[in-house]
């Protein structure tokens, strides 16, 4: 129970800090909102890359798909999408509160569902591909999604879409999206926390350790892949919908499908924190995002080199990540029972809960 109460205390502390942050530092609401998006990125990437061992380089595609689905829904509810995008932001429509928030809610829901369906279809197509081939295949998906979007005038093409203007008072916009991003990250965390308590967790770990053996045991490996990827896509779709509205402008290369920034960040954060754990991605996102903000502030011009060094050091010298390293040093902190040394094991009857062996 000690572990459970400590976890509860940690949850409470994070929630208090999370709820207070935009009131204490109102000027930094957007940075904090992006931080929660980063947490969501790392958690969703880990479901495939950490728990199942399928390194996707293209998860950012679901972020972008969600962003566009939401944008088109919001606009399409009150105006003709083609005319709106053709006017290149020159159409000034006033969205009423009901239109804005109704459209945002519906758009976010459709973004989540659309990204989920997309992931389910893609997992069917890419399910048979493993290892580096899967990584490159998914990278291709992300790049193709960006190129297709840029070449599609109805959704604004390379010019992008100016998002509807937030109807509330100045300053409320940042606060609203901060709490929306916080809620999305918390929901994402709670979902995966629940999911990793079910049979799903051992099955995807088995696929990670030896997929052939998992198949030989009759596991429905395709189902697990579809669920893992779709779950990630669901939350990425929501994140995309919120991020697009928070930025106020949606375009394919820098905002919707930033393969080289967010797409790489989500992997780097997970590896840094410790893949295959629930808290590793969260810790990794925190450390990484702080580093990112510091380098952008104090090492401007060198920020990508600093992040590159961080990624290289993590991958080469620190593969288990922060949490993996702590876990290997202090397994008892994680409720891991260490070996019971029961002497030679040759079908002896089960030993009664024996006193701990005296260690030399």
């Amino acid at each position: 129970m000690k572990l459970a109460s400590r976890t509860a205390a940690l949850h409470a502390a994070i929630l208090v800090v999370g709820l207070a942050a935009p009131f204490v530092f109102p000027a930094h609401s957007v940075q904090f909102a992006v931080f929660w998006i980063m947490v969501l990125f790392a958690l969703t990437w880990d479901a495939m890359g950490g728990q199942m061992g399928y390194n996707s380089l293209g998860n950012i595609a679901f972020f972008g798909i969600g962003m566009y689905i939401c944008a088109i829904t919001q606009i399409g509810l009150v105006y003709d999408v083609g005319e709106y995008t053709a006017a290149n932001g020159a159409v000034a429509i006033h969205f009423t509160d009901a239109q804005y928030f109704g459209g945002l809610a519906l758009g976010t829901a459709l973004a989540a569902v659309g990204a989920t369906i997309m992931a389910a279809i893609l997992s069917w197509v890419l399910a048979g591909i493993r290892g580096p081939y899967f990584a490159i295949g998914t990278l291709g998906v992300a790049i193709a999604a960006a190129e297709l979007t840029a070449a599609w005038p109805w959704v604004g093409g390379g010019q992008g879409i100016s998002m509807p203007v937030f109807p509330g008072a100045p300053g409320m916009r940042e606060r609203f999206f901060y709490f929306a991003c916080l809620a999305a990250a918390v929901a994402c965390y709670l979902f995966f926390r629940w999911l990793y308590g079910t049979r799903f967790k051992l099955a995807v770990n088995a696929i990670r350790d030896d997929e052939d053996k998992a198949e030989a045991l009759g596991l429905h490996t395709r189902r697990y892949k579809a669920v893992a990827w779709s779950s990630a896509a669901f939350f990425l779709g929501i994140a995309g919908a919120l991020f697009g509205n928070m930025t106020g402008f949606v375009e394919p290369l820098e905002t919707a499908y930033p393969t080289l920034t967010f797409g790489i960040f989500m992997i780097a954060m997970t590896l840094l924190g410790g893949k295959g754990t629930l808290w590793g991605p969260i810790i990794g996102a925190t450390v990484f995002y702080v580093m990112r903000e510091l380098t952008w502030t104090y090492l401007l011009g060198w920020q990508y080199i600093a992040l590159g060094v961080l990624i290289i050091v993590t991958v080469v010298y620190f593969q288990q990540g922060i949490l993996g390293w702590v876990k290997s040093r202090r397994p008892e902190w994680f409720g891991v029972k260490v070996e019971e040394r029961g002497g030679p094991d040759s079908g002896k009857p089960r030993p009664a809960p024996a006193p701990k062996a005296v260690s030399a």
Partner: protein
Amino acid sequence: MSGPIIEVRGVTKAFGGVVANREVSLTVERGSITGLIGPNGSGKTTLFSSIVGQHPIDSGSIRFDGREISRLGVQGIARLGLQRTFQQTRVFAKMDCVQNMLVSLPQAESGFFDMFKPYPPDLIAKAEHLLEFVGLYTKRRLAAGSLSFGQQKLLEFAMALMNEPKVLLLDEPTAGINPTLINGLIDRLKRANRDYGITLFVIEHNMRVVMNLAQHIYCMAVGKVLCSGTPEEVKNDPRVIDAYLGAAA
């Protein structure tokens, strides 16, 4: 109930120009322990892989429980109740022994939403009971990858039992196992056959083991079935001795 549970008829499998199995035919009786021997490279493991659907066969027929399975995939065949263990052990290295056992549950009945259920205590108890059966109870919280090769073989055997197969194909179950533990393993294989009603089909190089274990033995050489019979008949067949030691000139 007796009668054949596995019927292999005229199975041929070639890898490029190398014919690993040529017109192989054999049957495994329901409830039996059947042995498969033969020198290295005689096609025993290839035959196992063909039976469990790891690769498509070039020609012939494989029936399991009266049903043609030579066109089914690995997962489908496993769910019908046909399991194999591997010569080089395959366990889930980063998961502990109990987790390895739990993930090996039979999958024939598992629906889509079963993946969102937790593991009930009786399944955990069953996993621990089977680990005790193979003598790994005290190691149950260790990562499978940290076990010795012999212990991994025992774990893989326990995982196969957890899967509740009708037939278990064992590829050299005693190879790499400490000789003092081999008798215990033979005993456990016999008990699995008797108590759990699992038909065993065993590739084995250790003649003492296979003679002790099997009721019926097939001997393969250069991709073909050379002969078959009771252990006594096979042991005294001059063709078998020739196959192993080379025919006298």
